[in-house]
């Protein structure tokens, strides 16, 4: 009896890959990261592979590096693997050609994901693996978590025999993250399926000084071609080998696979060909249609490369008249997508009549692919003249390629329970659902599936869980659209999401509500009432929030609602379910401690007491007004954004979207997510005008304005202000205002506020108070606040804390984590230079909260000026930003020449401006406006040319922004080159010391002794000193800053970096959720980091590199207390102390030494006079 486990596709594949490998080189990328994380965790725990060895797991600096390491390991005779997706696979391509060209057995496991084109997408399709189809790797596809395990072992077994390396792939998220019941292969299965003699043969072919050979030669035209053809027999033999391995698996497990698996009518006339998870939806549909007498079938491709045409033809019923080949990718300009072309060729070359073959695209970036869509393809094939090319799943009103889908068609069987849960990330809904399906999966004969839809916001994020339970394996690879059970775990979501849209007639609806059964009705939104009545739902409420609070669970309502679910759904007998829930609680939380288990158990025990059925009133459907939909503007694009915000993005037609991925800025302000429970309220009576609350606010939700008293005309009653105490701006008023619907309630402002009431020291000038007590008043005040004119930039000194905070932020209300440590830097950057800055943003957290649709926090001022932002890739960001600089310089150079020719007086005036002062920039804008006016009616070609270039005459600031994963690791080579190039670019590294966006994997910035993913045993090596490396060029301005420790130094460093007419590198300490410290105290923790010597503040300014000057300036003092005073507050350090105290002690001592040593070096550097021989200044620009 095989062990039945409930795992996702990543774990299923990694389970095999780990046990079949000796060297595993990893690098994080969504959605493949968990495969590397599991391997690292297993290796740290000493788990052995099939042959008794613990695999070596190493994190590399990029996927390119991982592929290189795998290549080397293979050449030296090891069994090596890696895991990747999307852009990562692209970086592996060069090595893949080599590995295949050298006929080396290897497997790369890929969670297939869209490639970034007009936009990045983390979701699943086949564009990445299709880009690898010419590498010479065999491509083997699995369609479910079970298959992810089975195809993984087939790949590892077959590659050893075939000597052709394999790319094993499955659909990102849909399979990689779908939990499903899997019959797990045990160690004996693996030993039986992986032939050891073939492993030994691989070793014999390896490079060794004991029997040296030469591999990796350069070949001339005389032999390269012939040698390339020499490998053909291996590819010819491969399909047979794979089929034999599939048969061997079937013999051991009963699970039978074929190179092309056909299912459907034996005499089918219409057949769909596709590969991946969509095959299960297609098979389900075919079964339903065949039962209805239709002659249809589906052919699922498993081995895609080499394409075994004979096997394909043999698998296709001879009766087939029409074929639709579905590709989950797009190859613009081609005659058809790759699978379509292969099928076409295979059919064209066989003997006999040629069926009609059409090619369609579906499912790009995890677009849903449902039985209704499959049916629409079959229906279309039945039409007299089906389209030769089509799309399915979208409405294409531009090229008119899309098929019409009858969404009412469904194949969901009656004996499968379907449940959908709406919750918040923070309430534990997903975790509880994972436990629920594990429980049902363990139950004899039970099968379960779970798929989770996550938010792209990192704060206040909503999750939707789709769970199916049934007596047979569940393949349905699509979201539930008709649920028997709907639970809404947060009452507030009823207003935001149409949660009952998914409810089937007669379904059960469970609502967590702060109301009893007899009063809840009047609090329900109209559409909820309507649907309860119209669909005849059974409706239950429970005050899970109260029960959870009582049980000491805080806001985690998951356990309470999970228990109610089991009670109402009847998937298991209740007594049995409760025992199982408690068992699952012990399993999940037992390691954390008894207190955690006890609280969860208490929540289970009291869950059902409060569960009440609601009797729907007779006049139940009586309406209450519906809240007005979000109105982001009137144009098409704004309407599209509004639709996305309302969760209706799937319904947008092709025409609603931009052709090139260009979107307007300033849209985050329309979201009004209102996720805070408490918001900061200002008490002007004790305010000391320090502006710290505003500068630390990660969400630009605390704003300061300084203005003349007359601007208060029309202010709402009680609008708080106070006198602004500043001799340069006499007689002005100031106010501090919260954006109540945009604040996340993180509390950083309150923790930072230095002004205390004399009478009650705990009362500050800004205090968190319940939002609902203040919402209406603060909304009105915020609206008025926005209407107060901005202060003229020329009146303030932006390079100061107060000055910068008087200016309008052009980065606001991002979806970053509550209390994010990165965003305050970006916000202050926009206050300093926002109206004239370009931003090249490396992929990572900042590109997600900066540019993940539907909205963006980047915005423009009233003149329409603001940061121009773009994200290219992860690895190329420095180069991308340098390109922007080169373009600006080229344009400025031409513009200057043209002005000199067309308007010499303005040219003179322009050269007289001081580009480094606000006044100078304002003057430049004025002169450019004059220039444009003057040449507006000038018909000379030069004038037209100048009009397009004149903007470059106003000084621009290029900021290259990214995290430490980019700067220290994957992008370091490019960053180094860009710094060395000497051009005027500014680099801001938001250093969280970990890959934050992908869930906390170690980077070379991760300090020694910190626990991170990929460093589960504690990071062994010390942190790389990126700043010090950059100083070695001599002409790079470098600053090490920490906002929470020293606001003025931060602002000064950013201003100095901008002013330096050469490359600048600013490394900004950013506290992060992945540090495991309290986010509200993030700024205080930053100060501790500096005070305890962990993060020294310093600046290296090439302008101070004259004779007798000291360019290296230490801005923080030597630490008096040990590092542990800082590290004790962060789980990344304390986890190791808990888990492995002795190792923590050892690494802690080394980490203290790292800090002491660095201080010693810095103190000596600060004494050094430095005079680089080539201080680059204007000359570089002039060359341009």
């Amino acid at each position, binding site marked *: 009896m095989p062990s039945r486990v409930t795992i996702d596709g990543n774990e299923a594949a990694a389970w095999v890959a780990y046990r079949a490998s000796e060297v595993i080189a990893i690098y994080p990328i969504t959605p493949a990261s968990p495969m590397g994380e599991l391997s690292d965790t297993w290796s740290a725990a000493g788990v052995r592979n099939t042959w008794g060895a613990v695999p070596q797991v190493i994190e590399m600096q990029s996927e390119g590096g991982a592929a290189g390491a795998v290549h080397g390991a293979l050449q030296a005779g090891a069994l090596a693997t890696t895991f990747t997706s999307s852009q990562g696979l692209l970086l592996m391509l060069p090595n893949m050609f080599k590995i295949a060209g050298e006929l080396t057995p290897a497997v790369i496991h890929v969670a297939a994901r869209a490639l970034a084109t007009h936009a990045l997408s983390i979701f699943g399709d086949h564009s990445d693996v299709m880009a690898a189809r010419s590498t010479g790797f065999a491509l083997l596809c699995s369609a479910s978590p079970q298959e992810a395990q089975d195809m993984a072992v087939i790949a590892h077994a077959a590659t050893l025999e075939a000597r052709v390396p394999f790319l094993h792939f499955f659909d990102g998220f849909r399979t990689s993250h779908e939990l499903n019941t899997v019959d797990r292969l045990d160690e004996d299965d693996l030993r039986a399926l992986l032939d050891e003699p073939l492993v030994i043969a691989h070793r014999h072919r390896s490079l060794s000084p004991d029997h040296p050979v030469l591999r990796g030669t350069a070949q001339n035209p005389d032999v390269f071609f012939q040698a390339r053809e020499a490998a053909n027999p291996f590819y010819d033999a491969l399909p047979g080998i794979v089929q034999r391995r599939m048969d061997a698996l079937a013999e051991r497990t009963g699970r039978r696979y074929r190179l092309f698996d056909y299912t459907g009518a034996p005499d089918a006339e219409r057949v769909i060909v596709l590969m991946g998870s969509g095959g299960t939806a297609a098979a389900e549909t075919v079964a339903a249609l065949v039962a209805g007498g239709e002659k249809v079938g589906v052919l699922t491709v498993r081995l895609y490369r080499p394409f075994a045409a004979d096997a394909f033809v043999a698998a296709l019923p001879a009766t087939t008249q029409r074929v639709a080949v579905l590709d989950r990718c797009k190859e613009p300009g081609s005659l058809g997508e790759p699978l379509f072309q292969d099928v076409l060729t295979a059919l064209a070359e066989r003997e006999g009549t040629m069926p009609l073959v059409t090619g369609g695209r579906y499912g790009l970036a995890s677009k849903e692919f449902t039985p209704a869509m499959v049916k629409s393809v079959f229906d279309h094939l039945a039409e007299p003249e089906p389209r030769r090319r089509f799309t399915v799943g979208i409405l294409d009103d531009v090229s008119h390629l899309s098929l019409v889908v009858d969404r009412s068609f469904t194949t969901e069987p009656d004996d499968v329970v379907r449940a959908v849960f709406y919750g918040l990330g923070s309430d534990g809904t997903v975790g509880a659902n994972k436990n629920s399906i594990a429980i049902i999966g363990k139950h004899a004969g039970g099968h379960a599936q779970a798929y989770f839809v996550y938010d792209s916001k990192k704060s206040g994020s909503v999750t939707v869980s789709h769970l199916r339970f049934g007596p047979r394996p569940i393949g349905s690879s699509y979201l539930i659209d008709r649920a028997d059970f709907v639970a809404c775990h947060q009452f507030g979501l009823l207003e935001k999401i149409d949660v009952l849209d998914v409810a089937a007639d007669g379904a059960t609806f469970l609502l967590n509500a702060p109301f009893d059964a007899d009063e809840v009705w009047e609090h329900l939104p109209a559409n909820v009432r309507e649907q309860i009545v119209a669909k005849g739902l059974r409706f239950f409420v429970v005050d899970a929030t109260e029960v959870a609070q009582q049980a000491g669970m805080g806001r985690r309502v998951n356990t309470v609602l999970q228990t109610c679910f089991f009670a109402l759904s009847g998937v298991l007998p209740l007594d049995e379910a409760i025992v199982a829930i408690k068992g699952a609680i012990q399993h999940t939380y037992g390691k*954390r401690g008894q207190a955690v288990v006890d609280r969860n158990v208490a929540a289970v025990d009291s869950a059902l007491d409060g569960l009440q059925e609601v009797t729907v009133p007779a006049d139940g459907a009586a309406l209450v007004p519906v809240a007005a939909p979000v109105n982001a503007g009137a144009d098409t694009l704004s309407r599209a954004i509004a639709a996305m915000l309302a969760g209706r993005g799937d319904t947008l037609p092709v025409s609603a979207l931009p052709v090139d991925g260009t979107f307007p800025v300033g849209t985050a302000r329309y979201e009004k997510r209102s996720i805070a429970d408490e918001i900061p309220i200002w008490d002007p009576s004790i305010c000391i005008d320090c502006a710290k609350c505003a500068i630390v606010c990660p969400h630009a939700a605390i704003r300061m304005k300084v203005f003349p008293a007359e601007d208060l005309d029309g202010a709402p009653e009680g609008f708080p202000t106070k006198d602004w105490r500043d001799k340069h701006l006499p007689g002005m008023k100031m106010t501090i205002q919260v954006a109540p619907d945009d604040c996340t309630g993180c509390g950083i402002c309150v923790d930072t506020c230095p002004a205390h009431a004399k009478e009650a020291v705990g009362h500050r000038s800004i205090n968190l108070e319940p939002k609902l007590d203040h919402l209406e008043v603060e909304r009105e005040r915020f609206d008025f606040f926005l209407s107060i004119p901005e202060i003229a930039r020329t009146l303030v000194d932006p390079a100061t804390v107060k000055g910068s905070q008087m200016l309008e932020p052009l980065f606001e209300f991002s979806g970053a984590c509550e209390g994010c440590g990165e965003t305050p830097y970006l916000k202050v950057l926009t206050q300093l230079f926002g109206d004239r800055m370009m931003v090249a943003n490396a992929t990572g957290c900042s590109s997600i909260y900066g540019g993940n649709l539907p909205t963006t926090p980047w915005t423009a001022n009233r003149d329409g000026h603001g940061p121009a932002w773009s994200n290219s890739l992860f690895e190329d960001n420095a180069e991308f930003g340098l390109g922007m600089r080169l373009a600006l310089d080229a344009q400025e150079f031409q513009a200057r020449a043209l002005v000199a020719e067309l308007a010499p007086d303005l040219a003179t005036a322009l050269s007289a401006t001081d580009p480094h002062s606000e006044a100078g920039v304002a003057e430049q804008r004025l002169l450019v406006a004059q220039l444009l006016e003057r040449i507006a009616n000038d018909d000379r070609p030069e004038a037209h040319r100048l009009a397009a270039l004149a903007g470059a005459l106003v000084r621009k600031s290029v900021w290259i922004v990214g995290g430490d994963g980019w700067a220290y690791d994957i992008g370091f080579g490019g960053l180094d080159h860009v710094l060395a190039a000497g051009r005027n670019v500014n680099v801001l590294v938001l250093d969280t010391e970990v890959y934050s966006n992908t869930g906390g994997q170690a980077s070379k910035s991760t300090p020694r002794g910190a626990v991170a993913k990929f460093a589960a045993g504690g990071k062994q090596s010390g942190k790389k000193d990126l700043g010090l490396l950059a100083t070695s060029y001599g002409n790079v301005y470098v600053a090490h800053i920490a906002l929470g420790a020293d606001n003025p130094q931060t602002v000064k460093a950013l201003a100095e970096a901008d002013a330096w007419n050469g490359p600048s590198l600013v490394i900004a300490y950013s506290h992060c959720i992945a540090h495991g410290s309290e986010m509200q105290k993030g700024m205080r923790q930053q100060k501790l980091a500096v005070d305890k010597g962990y993060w020294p503040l310093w600046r290296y300014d090439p302008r101070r590199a004259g004779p007798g000057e000291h360019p290296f300036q230490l801005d923080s003092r030597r630490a008096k207390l040990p590092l542990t005073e800082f590290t004790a507050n962060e789980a990344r350090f304390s986890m190791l102390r808990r888990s492995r105290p002795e190792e923590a002690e050892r690494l802690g001592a080394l980490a203290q030494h790292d800090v002491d040593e660095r201080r010693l070096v810095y103190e000596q550097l600060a004494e050094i006079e430095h005079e680089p021989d080539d201080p680059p200044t204007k000359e570089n620009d002039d060359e341009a």
Partner: protein
Amino acid sequence: MKPDLRSTYLGLELKSPLVASASPLTGNLDSLRALEEAGAAAVVLPSLFEEQIEHDETLVDVVLERGAHSYGEALSYFPEMDDYNTGPNAYVEHVALAKKALSIPVIASINGVTPGGWVRYAELLQQAGADAIELNVYAVETDPYASAASVEDRTLRLVSRVHGALTVPLAVKVGPYYSAFANTASRLSDAGAAGLVLFNRFLQPDIDLETMTVKPELHLSSNEEMQLPLRWIAILRGRVPASLAATSGIQSSEDVVKLLLAGADAVMLASALLRHGPSLLTELTAGLTAWMAEHDYESVEQLKGSMSQETCGNPRAFERSQYVRAIVDYQTGRTMK
């Protein structure tokens, strides 16, 4: 003839009345061995704090859950570790190891929060080999509606429950802040306390004038503090069946003698050992022996309680009379040294 230093505390036979009470020194095996070698007759291990355990467990949970399962690219932010070593395991293991390393009695101590927690941990520590369990009962009661009687009743119920669950003897370490301490002590004894440890010292708040924050602090005890246990041991001696241990401020062998005279069965040291190291025990033992020899006391048993309130010949001296004397002295200037 060398005086006999043996004493009985909690029914345990001690080679002398000198006990090393809970401090960092008893939290470490090496220093435990040094304490035994220097003459400690028993050791009390640092308290297992239920609140700390709960706090640690909760924190591990909070850290692992924060931001988890919310955002598709980062479903967690930390690797799952083999073990977080939360819970009482580390403490229980320390008890077992201490028991193995030492031949003197090992007393384990608990500071609980929940009734279930007290009993569960007491049983665990007994299983680990503790020769006795000391309950460290004290909580700052801030509820203006909770009466002294109800708080005391709660403590008594707790002692009785733990007592019922144990086979080894139970000591209760209490603070001095009771209106009718003699009565409380007597009821504790009735509820199952085989010994009373007088008195517990607590973390007290302090205010940092620089940062304007409140900081709880614990200072090492000073010599004057021993007078409070001295008084109450003298009063309770002979009045309650429980054996009595003195703690707080004991520094010299004279202090030890005084407390034995007042009626202590055991004299516990922590601050002085932290200041001077385990070897202080050797000095105190020698000092005690010398004093007894000099004053012709044959045994500690003979010495114990010979100047209790009952036996000192001037019972009022342990009551208000001292106050009266002090005022007289002050007026005559005799105490103004």
